[in-house]
Protein backbone atom coordinates (compact mmCIF):
# COMPACT_ATOMS: atom_id res chain seq x y z
CA UNK A 1 0.00 0.00 0.00
CA UNK A 2 1.40 3.40 -0.97
CA UNK A 3 1.31 6.25 1.51
CA UNK A 4 2.50 9.58 0.08
CA UNK A 5 6.09 8.80 -1.01
CA UNK A 6 6.72 5.52 0.80
CA UNK A 7 5.38 1.99 0.90
CA UNK A 8 3.27 1.33 3.97
CA UNK A 9 4.87 -1.93 5.07
CA UNK A 10 5.65 -3.30 8.53
CA UNK A 11 9.35 -2.20 8.49
CA UNK A 12 8.60 1.32 7.19
CA UNK A 13 5.80 1.86 9.73
CA UNK A 14 8.07 0.58 12.53
CA UNK A 15 10.81 2.98 11.37
CA UNK A 16 8.38 5.93 11.30
CA UNK A 17 7.03 5.08 14.77
CA UNK A 18 10.56 4.66 16.20
CA UNK A 19 11.71 8.00 14.75
CA UNK A 20 8.52 9.75 15.93
CA UNK A 21 8.71 8.51 19.52
CA UNK A 22 12.48 9.03 19.88
CA UNK A 23 12.27 12.51 18.37
CA UNK A 24 9.35 13.42 20.65
CA UNK A 25 11.51 12.66 23.70
CA UNK A 26 14.38 14.82 22.38
CA UNK A 27 12.19 17.72 21.20
CA UNK A 28 10.38 17.82 24.56
CA UNK A 29 13.77 18.12 26.31
CA UNK A 30 14.89 20.91 23.95
CA UNK A 31 11.54 22.70 24.38
CA UNK A 32 11.96 22.72 28.17
CA UNK A 33 15.28 24.61 27.91
CA UNK A 34 14.08 27.01 25.17
CA UNK A 35 10.96 27.77 27.24
CA UNK A 36 13.10 28.46 30.32
CA UNK A 37 15.38 30.78 28.30
CA UNK A 38 12.43 32.57 26.69
CA UNK A 39 10.64 33.09 29.98
CA UNK A 40 13.65 34.38 31.94
CA UNK A 41 15.87 36.10 29.34
CA UNK A 42 13.42 37.02 26.54
CA UNK A 43 11.84 35.26 23.57
CA UNK A 44 13.88 36.95 20.82
CA UNK A 45 17.33 35.58 21.87
CA UNK A 46 15.77 32.21 22.79
CA UNK A 47 14.29 31.82 19.30
CA UNK A 48 17.41 33.20 17.53
CA UNK A 49 19.56 30.66 19.43
CA UNK A 50 17.14 27.84 18.60
CA UNK A 51 17.05 28.85 14.91
CA UNK A 52 20.85 29.06 14.71
CA UNK A 53 21.03 25.57 16.26
CA UNK A 54 18.56 24.25 13.68
CA UNK A 55 20.60 25.77 10.82
CA UNK A 56 23.79 24.12 12.12
CA UNK A 57 21.98 20.77 12.31
CA UNK A 58 20.79 21.12 8.70
CA UNK A 59 24.38 21.86 7.58
CA UNK A 60 25.64 18.81 9.50
CA UNK A 61 22.97 16.59 7.88
CA UNK A 62 24.02 17.84 4.42
CA UNK A 63 27.73 17.19 5.11
CA UNK A 64 27.39 13.79 6.80
CA UNK A 65 24.51 12.68 4.57
CA UNK A 66 26.71 12.98 1.48
CA UNK A 67 29.69 11.32 3.24
CA UNK A 68 27.56 8.30 4.21
CA UNK A 69 26.93 7.37 0.59
CA UNK A 70 30.69 6.83 0.16
CA UNK A 71 30.80 4.09 2.83
CA UNK A 72 30.35 0.47 1.60
CA UNK A 73 26.88 -0.83 2.54
CA UNK A 74 28.06 -3.75 4.74
CA UNK A 75 30.33 -1.42 6.74
CA UNK A 76 27.57 1.16 7.02
CA UNK A 77 25.09 -1.44 8.31
CA UNK A 78 27.65 -2.70 10.83
CA UNK A 79 28.69 0.76 12.09
CA UNK A 80 25.12 2.06 12.30
CA UNK A 81 23.95 -1.21 13.85
CA UNK A 82 26.56 -1.02 16.62
CA UNK A 83 25.85 2.67 17.32
CA UNK A 84 22.09 2.09 17.24
CA UNK A 85 22.40 -0.85 19.61
CA UNK A 86 24.62 1.06 22.05
CA UNK A 87 22.24 4.04 21.94
CA UNK A 88 19.06 1.92 22.20
CA UNK A 89 20.31 -0.41 24.94
CA UNK A 90 21.60 2.59 26.96
CA UNK A 91 18.09 4.13 26.86
CA UNK A 92 16.50 0.75 27.58
CA UNK A 93 18.73 0.06 30.60
CA UNK A 94 18.00 3.52 32.00
CA UNK A 95 14.24 3.05 31.46
CA UNK A 96 14.42 -0.38 33.16
CA UNK A 97 16.24 1.09 36.19
CA UNK A 98 13.73 3.96 36.39
CA UNK A 99 10.75 1.59 36.12
CA UNK A 100 12.24 -0.58 38.87
CA UNK A 101 12.70 2.47 41.11
CA UNK A 102 16.48 2.13 41.14
CA UNK A 103 17.07 5.63 39.71
CA UNK A 104 14.81 8.69 39.79
CA UNK A 105 12.35 9.45 37.00
CA UNK A 106 13.18 12.22 34.50
CA UNK A 107 11.21 15.31 35.59
CA UNK A 108 10.75 18.07 32.97
CA UNK A 109 9.16 20.44 35.53
CA UNK A 110 12.15 20.06 37.88
CA UNK A 111 14.61 20.58 34.99
CA UNK A 112 12.67 23.70 33.93
CA UNK A 113 12.76 25.12 37.49
CA UNK A 114 16.49 24.39 37.84
CA UNK A 115 17.22 25.98 34.46
CA UNK A 116 15.16 29.13 35.18
CA UNK A 117 16.93 29.54 38.55
CA UNK A 118 20.34 29.30 36.87
CA UNK A 119 19.33 31.78 34.15
CA UNK A 120 18.02 34.26 36.74
CA UNK A 121 21.27 34.06 38.71
CA UNK A 122 23.25 34.83 35.53
CA UNK A 123 22.43 38.58 35.79
CA UNK A 124 20.00 40.79 33.92
CA UNK A 125 19.21 40.08 30.24
CA UNK A 126 21.03 42.04 27.50
CA UNK A 127 18.26 42.44 24.91
CA UNK A 128 18.00 40.56 21.62
CA UNK A 129 21.69 39.53 21.56
CA UNK A 130 21.84 38.34 25.17
CA UNK A 131 24.78 35.88 24.96
CA UNK A 132 23.59 33.62 27.81
CA UNK A 133 20.16 33.20 26.22
CA UNK A 134 21.58 32.67 22.73
CA UNK A 135 24.16 30.07 23.83
CA UNK A 136 21.81 28.16 26.18
CA UNK A 137 19.05 27.92 23.56
CA UNK A 138 21.52 27.10 20.76
CA UNK A 139 23.22 24.38 22.82
CA UNK A 140 19.92 22.73 23.82
CA UNK A 141 18.69 22.55 20.22
CA UNK A 142 22.05 21.29 18.87
CA UNK A 143 22.54 18.62 21.55
CA UNK A 144 19.01 17.22 21.43
CA UNK A 145 18.84 17.70 17.65
CA UNK A 146 22.04 15.68 17.14
CA UNK A 147 20.34 12.73 18.79
CA UNK A 148 17.33 13.15 16.48
CA UNK A 149 19.60 13.27 13.41
CA UNK A 150 21.46 10.18 14.53
CA UNK A 151 18.20 8.28 15.10
CA UNK A 152 16.70 9.35 11.76
CA UNK A 153 19.84 8.46 9.79
CA UNK A 154 20.32 5.19 11.69
CA UNK A 155 16.77 3.83 11.48
CA UNK A 156 16.41 5.23 7.97
CA UNK A 157 19.64 3.76 6.62
CA UNK A 158 17.91 0.92 4.80
CA UNK A 159 16.71 1.65 1.28
CA UNK A 160 13.26 3.26 1.31
CA UNK A 161 13.19 3.99 5.06
CA UNK A 162 14.78 7.47 5.21
CA UNK A 163 11.54 9.21 4.20
CA UNK A 164 9.40 7.36 6.82
CA UNK A 165 12.08 8.12 9.46
CA UNK A 166 12.22 11.82 8.49
CA UNK A 167 8.41 11.99 8.40
CA UNK A 168 8.22 10.52 11.90
CA UNK A 169 10.76 13.07 13.22
CA UNK A 170 9.05 15.99 11.42
CA UNK A 171 5.67 14.96 12.86
CA UNK A 172 7.21 14.88 16.35
CA UNK A 173 8.72 18.36 15.85
CA UNK A 174 5.39 19.75 14.67
CA UNK A 175 3.50 18.13 17.55
CA UNK A 176 5.92 19.41 20.20
CA UNK A 177 5.96 22.97 18.72
CA UNK A 178 2.13 23.09 18.55
CA UNK A 179 1.70 21.72 22.08
CA UNK A 180 4.49 24.03 23.31
CA UNK A 181 2.75 27.07 21.80
CA UNK A 182 -0.60 26.05 23.28
CA UNK A 183 0.56 24.97 26.72
CA UNK A 184 3.47 27.44 27.15
CA UNK A 185 5.04 25.41 29.94
CA UNK A 186 7.26 22.30 30.13
CA UNK A 187 5.53 19.15 28.90
CA UNK A 188 5.83 17.37 32.24
CA UNK A 189 2.83 15.13 31.46
CA UNK A 190 4.64 13.38 28.61
CA UNK A 191 5.36 9.82 29.83
CA UNK A 192 9.08 10.23 29.15
CA UNK A 193 10.18 6.93 30.69
CA UNK A 194 7.55 4.89 28.84
CA UNK A 195 8.58 6.56 25.57
CA UNK A 196 12.27 5.86 26.29
CA UNK A 197 11.41 2.25 27.09
CA UNK A 198 9.50 1.77 23.82
CA UNK A 199 12.16 3.60 21.77
CA UNK A 200 14.96 1.65 23.48
CA UNK A 201 13.24 -1.61 22.55
CA UNK A 202 12.66 -0.47 18.93
CA UNK A 203 16.20 0.89 18.38
CA UNK A 204 17.82 -2.16 19.97
CA UNK A 205 15.79 -4.41 17.65
CA UNK A 206 16.89 -2.39 14.60
CA UNK A 207 20.51 -2.33 15.84
CA UNK A 208 20.76 -6.13 16.14
CA UNK A 209 19.12 -6.52 12.74
CA UNK A 210 21.63 -4.18 11.02
CA UNK A 211 24.58 -5.91 12.74
CA UNK A 212 23.32 -9.26 11.49
CA UNK A 213 22.86 -7.87 7.98
CA UNK A 214 26.29 -6.23 8.03
CA UNK A 215 28.04 -9.43 9.08
CA UNK A 216 26.10 -11.56 6.57
CA UNK A 217 23.87 -13.44 9.04
CA UNK A 218 20.68 -14.81 7.44
CA UNK A 219 17.54 -13.70 9.36
CA UNK A 220 14.51 -16.02 9.54
CA UNK A 221 11.61 -14.19 7.86
CA UNK A 222 13.97 -11.50 6.48
CA UNK A 223 12.77 -7.97 7.45
CA UNK A 224 9.94 -9.35 9.58
CA UNK A 225 12.51 -10.68 12.06
CA UNK A 226 12.83 -7.04 13.24
CA UNK A 227 9.44 -7.50 14.91
CA UNK A 228 10.62 -10.69 16.65
CA UNK A 229 13.75 -8.89 17.85
CA UNK A 230 11.63 -6.01 19.20
CA UNK A 231 9.38 -8.50 21.02
CA UNK A 232 12.46 -10.28 22.37
CA UNK A 233 13.95 -7.06 23.76
CA UNK A 234 10.58 -6.15 25.32
CA UNK A 235 10.42 -9.54 27.05
CA UNK A 236 14.04 -9.30 28.28
CA UNK A 237 13.31 -5.80 29.61
CA UNK A 238 10.27 -6.92 31.61
CA UNK A 239 12.38 -9.73 33.11
CA UNK A 240 15.10 -7.16 33.92
CA UNK A 241 12.57 -4.84 35.63
CA UNK A 242 11.32 -7.75 37.76
CA UNK A 243 14.86 -8.72 38.77
CA UNK A 244 15.95 -5.11 39.38
CA UNK A 245 13.00 -4.54 41.73
CA UNK A 246 13.75 -7.55 43.95
CA UNK A 247 17.00 -6.44 45.69
CA UNK A 248 15.51 -3.04 46.58
CA UNK A 249 12.53 -4.67 48.30
CA UNK A 250 14.81 -7.09 50.19
CA UNK A 251 16.97 -4.14 51.25
CA UNK A 252 13.94 -2.22 52.51
CA UNK A 253 12.73 -5.13 54.64
CA UNK A 254 16.10 -5.74 56.33
Amino acid at each position, binding site marked *: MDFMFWDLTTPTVTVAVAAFLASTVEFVEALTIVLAVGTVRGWAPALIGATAGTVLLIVLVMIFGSLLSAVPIAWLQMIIGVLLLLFGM*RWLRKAILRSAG*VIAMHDEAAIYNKETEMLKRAGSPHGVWDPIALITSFKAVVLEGLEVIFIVIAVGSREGTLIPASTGAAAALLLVIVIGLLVHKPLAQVPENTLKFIVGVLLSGFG*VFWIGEGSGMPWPGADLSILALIAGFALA*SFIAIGLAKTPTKVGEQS
Partner: protein
Amino acid sequence: MNWLKMAVAELFSLFIDDVWFSFSIGVWIAFAALELPRIDGLGEWQGVILFSGLAVILVASSWRAARQK
Protein backbone atom coordinates in the same frame (compact mmCIF):
# COMPACT_ATOMS: atom_id res chain seq x y z
CA MET B 1 39.79 23.52 23.00
CA ASN B 2 37.31 23.38 25.86
CA TRP B 3 34.33 23.35 23.50
CA LEU B 4 35.90 20.49 21.51
CA LYS B 5 36.36 18.43 24.69
CA MET B 6 32.75 19.16 25.61
CA ALA B 7 31.50 18.16 22.15
CA VAL B 8 33.47 14.87 22.26
CA ALA B 9 32.19 14.16 25.79
CA GLU B 10 28.60 14.83 24.68
CA LEU B 11 29.01 12.59 21.64
CA PHE B 12 30.53 9.84 23.80
CA SER B 13 27.70 10.07 26.32
CA LEU B 14 25.13 9.45 23.57
CA PHE B 15 26.30 5.87 23.39
CA ILE B 16 28.04 5.09 26.67
CA ASP B 17 27.15 5.83 30.27
CA ASP B 18 28.02 2.54 31.93
CA VAL B 19 31.43 1.49 30.59
CA TRP B 20 31.09 -2.21 31.50
CA PHE B 21 27.66 -2.44 29.89
CA SER B 22 28.89 -0.91 26.62
CA PHE B 23 32.14 -2.92 26.75
CA SER B 24 30.20 -6.20 27.17
CA ILE B 25 27.97 -5.31 24.22
CA GLY B 26 31.03 -4.51 22.08
CA VAL B 27 32.83 -7.74 22.98
CA TRP B 28 29.72 -9.86 22.31
CA ILE B 29 29.08 -8.18 18.95
CA ALA B 30 32.73 -8.70 17.93
CA PHE B 31 32.58 -12.37 18.93
CA ALA B 32 29.23 -12.97 17.22
CA ALA B 33 30.12 -11.14 14.00
CA LEU B 34 33.55 -12.76 13.65
CA GLU B 35 33.05 -16.27 15.01
CA LEU B 36 29.42 -17.31 14.43
CA PRO B 37 29.60 -17.20 10.60
CA ARG B 38 32.59 -19.62 10.81
CA ILE B 39 30.61 -22.31 12.67
CA ASP B 40 29.02 -24.77 10.23
CA GLY B 41 25.29 -25.46 10.34
CA LEU B 42 24.21 -22.47 12.43
CA GLY B 43 22.42 -20.76 9.55
CA GLU B 44 19.53 -18.66 10.84
CA TRP B 45 20.45 -19.50 14.46
CA GLN B 46 23.32 -17.00 14.24
CA GLY B 47 20.97 -14.07 14.69
CA VAL B 48 19.14 -15.81 17.53
CA ILE B 49 22.46 -16.38 19.35
CA LEU B 50 23.52 -12.76 18.75
CA PHE B 51 20.24 -11.49 20.21
CA SER B 52 20.28 -13.94 23.16
CA GLY B 53 23.71 -12.76 24.29
CA LEU B 54 22.60 -9.13 24.18
CA ALA B 55 19.43 -9.92 26.13
CA VAL B 56 21.51 -11.64 28.83
CA ILE B 57 23.84 -8.61 29.00
CA LEU B 58 20.85 -6.26 29.39
CA VAL B 59 19.24 -8.32 32.16
CA ALA B 60 22.55 -8.94 33.99
CA SER B 61 23.62 -5.29 33.80
CA SER B 62 20.27 -4.00 35.11
CA TRP B 63 20.32 -6.55 37.94
CA ARG B 64 23.92 -5.61 38.81
CA ALA B 65 23.09 -1.88 38.84
CA ALA B 66 20.07 -2.52 41.10
CA ARG B 67 22.16 -4.57 43.53
CA GLN B 68 24.84 -1.86 43.72
CA LYS B 69 22.26 0.80 44.59
